[in-house]
């Protein structure tokens, strides 16, 4: 009995101390992490939409999108964040789309924990490039062979689930967006 109490108390104390230490470190760093994410988003927009001179944040329900204006003040497109379940966890990306919500300008992966060497390759240029000037009408589709239509991309060999996830997340978000505009 004495042994059991000792085991329980040691485990409890160790976990408590570690928990406090972690919450302390996290509260110190959370602000910086958030500003890093914000910077990653604005960098991604600058990268995908170099024509955007002015960016205006808009709230659509709970989610955020960005209106992109060119030099002369004309609305030229939208940027939006789309996130959803990938193979191993959340995939979060930023996409830029034209004003009619018909053609994608491109995507950037902000956050993902897909399998390195396989699913993580969705971050690589060769995959993301396929989304440049990709038609989203009626919706984006994927194939394991050579893409035939202007709304089709080629899934990564060995990482079909991750590729499919990117496509589905985008389709879902674009559909949501179209109800707002």
């Amino acid at each position, binding site marked *: 009995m004495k042994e059991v109490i000792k085991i329980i108390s*040691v485990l409890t104390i160790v976990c408590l101390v570690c928990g406090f230490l972690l919450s302390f*470190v996290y509260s110190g*760093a959370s602000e910086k992490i958030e500003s*890093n994410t914000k910077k990653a988003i604005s960098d991604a927009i600058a990268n995908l939409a170099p024509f955007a001179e002015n960016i205006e944040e808009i709230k659509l329900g709970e989610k955020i999108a960005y209106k992109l204006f060119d030099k002369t003040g004309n609305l030229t497109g939208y940027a939006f964040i789309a996130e959803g379940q990938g193979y191993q966890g959340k995939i979060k990306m930023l996409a830029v789309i034209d004003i009619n919500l018909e053609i994608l300008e491109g995507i950037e992966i902000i956050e993902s924990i897909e399998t*390195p060497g396989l699913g993580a390759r969705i971050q690589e240029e060769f995959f993301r490039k396929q989304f440049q000037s990709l038609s989203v009408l009626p919706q984006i589709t994927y194939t394991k062979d050579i893409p035939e239509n202007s709304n089709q991309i080629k899934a990564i060999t060995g990482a079909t689930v991750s590729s499919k996830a990117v496509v589905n997340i985008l389709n879902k978000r674009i559909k949501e967006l179209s109800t707002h505009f």
Partner: protein
Amino acid sequence: MKDFLKGLWGQHPVFRQLLGMCPTLAVTTSALNGISMGLAVIFVLFFSSLVVSLIKKIVPNQVRIAVYTVIIATFVTIVDIFFKANFPQISRALGPYIPLIVVNCIILGRCEAFASRCSVAKSLLDALGMGLGFTWGVFLLGSIREVLGMGTILGFQIMPQGYNHLIIMILPAGAFIVLGLLIALMNRIEER
């Protein structure tokens, strides 16, 4: 002193004990990734060994592994948060491998085999030696793969223009090839 030096060569964690193969093979696609991973491991190993060695007398034998794991996980999470806050680029490149230091067998192995049995000072020397040994191992591996696969080292071009990139060196197969050759080389040197 012996406790420190053995990790650098005689009982090298990567080339001799073959511990921590998952991060060794997976993150060494470039020299910088190798160094970052090595530094993260040194930090976690150092503090985990310190704490484990300090509390070795009060931890009941039956739950020691659970306690070590909680301690290691705490330090790993601190490293993860630190990288995310200060080096988002590296944090992205290393991806899930930082959290996976929790199950890096070098750390649990050293805590169990050494820190839980030896004095604090000895444990710290052991942790530093093993950590530095791991770091030079993954740095060397990462450098070789980066030079052959991309023609650069730490991002600087060193191979002449027109060098045909051996892409396989960046892929997982390259990690196995280079690791095998390095272990063979080390065995050869030891034999002499």
